């Protein structure tokens, strides 16, 4: 006579250690991320929605927010294209100095942003190496929007490359060859075979680069002219409010940036979900 085993008293998750890891994860996430953001929102809440709107709804603040998000978006777009190409080249081709180049991609992560900012300014100022060249052509780079854009591209580049690289490694050459034997042109292969596989990672990298650029202060502040209404970035406005001991206004601008960033990341996530559904693989 067969006896069915008694069901266990406590239902255990099939994944060992789930409770512990979840606990640790949530605790860490709360301490590191949710707590500061909560404090920011609490500061804003005590200030009042109407007051916050008054602080944000000014020409100068709008100009700074628009500048920050516009240039961050452009920088992230540039990084999306250039980062994917870089990832492809670094994984697919073998050439001397490849490892060195691969390591150099991480430099923007490692370098203190102020150092990067000063170095870029020295290079792109009218008396710098590149700045002098640009001056010959009648272009000013440092202390204009171009300078800000270059700094933002610099800090955001590794995000796209590093997220796309592992995916490129996973793609077998046979897939391209199969596509070719079935009569697809190179462009067609790229568009219908390669890109769908890269897209989710590339979009993630794009979102990361965008988020990083929006909040970037250290490197931009040296190369931006910081002129109100033309080259003043939103994080600088926050610092200015702090200099005036105006914590509430600083929190208000911070929350405005947070909301816009959140909306942008949400849209990117939606695009990602949509593209996954359409292409039909993870």
């Amino acid at each position, binding site marked *: 006579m067969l006896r069915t085993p008694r069901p266990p008293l406590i239902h255990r998750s099939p994944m060992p250690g789930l409770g512990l890891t979840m606990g640790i994860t949530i605790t860490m996430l709360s301490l590191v991320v949710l707590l500061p953001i909560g404090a920011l929102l609490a500061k804003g809440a005590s200030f009042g929605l109407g007051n916050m709107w008054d602080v944000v709804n000014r*020409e*100068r603040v709008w*100009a700074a927010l628009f500048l920050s998000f516009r240039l961050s978006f452009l920088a992230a777009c540039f990084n999306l294209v250039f980062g994917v190409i870089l990832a492809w080249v670094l994984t697919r081709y073998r050439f001397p100095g490849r490892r060195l180049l691969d390591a150099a991609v991480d430099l923007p992560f490692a370098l203190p942003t102020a150092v990067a900012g000063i170095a870029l*300014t*020295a290079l792109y*100022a*009218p*008396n*710098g190496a590149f700045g002098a060249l640009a001056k010959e052509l009648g272009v000013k780079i*440092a*202390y204009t929007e171009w300078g800000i854009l270059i700094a933002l591209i610099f800090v955001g580049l590794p995000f796209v490359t590093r997220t796309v690289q592992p995916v490129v490694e996973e793609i077998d050459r046979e897939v391209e060859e199969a596509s070719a034997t079935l009569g697809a042109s190179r462009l067609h292969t790229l568009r219908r075979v390669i890109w769908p596989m890269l897209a989710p990672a590339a979009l993630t990298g794009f979102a990361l680069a965008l988020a990083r650029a929006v909040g970037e202060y250290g490197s931009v*502040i*040296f190369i931006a*002219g*910081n*002129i*109100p*209404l033309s080259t003043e970035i939103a994080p*600088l406005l926050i*610092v*200015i*409010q*702090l*200099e*005036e*001991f*105006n*914590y509430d*206004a600083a929190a208000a601008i911070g929350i405005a940036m947070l909301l816009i960033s959140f909306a942008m990341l949400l849209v990117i996530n939606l695009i990602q979900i949509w593209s996954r559904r359409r292409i039909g693989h993870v």
Partner: protein
Amino acid sequence: MTAHTLLGLVPTFAPRPPRDQGAQKPRHQQETPMTTTVTITGNITAQGKTAAHQKDDRVTTVDGGRRLTGWPIALKGALSALALATLLGVAPAARAESLLNVSYDPTRELYREVNEAFAAQWQAQGNPAPGIETSHGGSGAQARAVIDGLGAQVVTLALASDIDKIAAAGKLPADWQAKRPHNSSPYTSTIVFLVREGNPKGIKDWGDLVKDGVEVVTPNPKTSGGARWNYLAAWAWAEKNGKDPKAFVGELYKHVPVLDSGARGSTTTFAQRGIGDVLLAWENEAYLALKELGEDEFDIVVPSVSVLAEPPVALVEGNITSEDQRKLAEAYLDFLYAPEGQALAFKHFYRAWDSSKANPEDVARFPKLDLVDIASFGGWAKVQPEHFGDGGIFDQIYVAK
């Protein structure tokens, strides 16, 4: 905010001493404070609005203006300090005397020498070697750090209004500026022009700055103490020359291609990046630029009117933890007024008061000019909100057409 508070806790950490178990008479222990009160020895204090007092057990006594010495009571503060100390591997070190001087940007070179000279003098008087540290940064940011808990015993900032802010936070009495001679300013300075060698644009006075094609480099008055003096000097000139000061200053800032956040940043932009034709600079900063970057590259132009900038010094009562420390801090500030200290100020291109021990060359270098002081603008309490406050006159310059 937290970063500064943390910084304030870092330098040294002395553990709470063992309590005297025998004679323990909790006298005023009615209310244990809810607001955090952390006062640790060494030079660390983190503030809170609490008044828990019992003299013999050495517990913190803090209120709006005054703070008596004590040990940390609030669990939160003590714990975080402990956690920080372990985290950063800061060994408990109790130095006999230590002092933190929180200063502004262009005084680095001055205080490096002052600290050395003062330490030597202090030791010569039979005291143990003092540990004097100086921190530099934008004047406003430095003031904020002190308000947020950076344990400075002495502040030497660019503007009286910055120290006023610290006083408003309850760390020193409101009448601090009357405590020392010359509005508590051991040295003064003024604003001059630094131009490129040979003065190619022919800049002589403030009026020349708004000519076509002239680019002026000055920091942002919102973030830099020195920049406010620049702005006021331009204002004073316009007033004296029958121009509308508001329009003139507005016009002037249209000629500014880069607004750095601090005076040092502007000097770098002008001198090393080659931006602009004129740098509005502290006189001491201009001379320093000549000395450091080459006399054959720049010229100093002294305008007809400028401001008398009085960078004040003060003792931060709230951060004094012992009588010995108070003595050291007082002596340090007195030294700035003593002939030796004054000589150093002259040497570092400040206009000091007492030239008896100064090198005559250092004194003779300063040209005479018409100097307007802050009182003639109505004092910082009036100027700060009117010109540099949120929506003030400076903000009105940058309005899109």
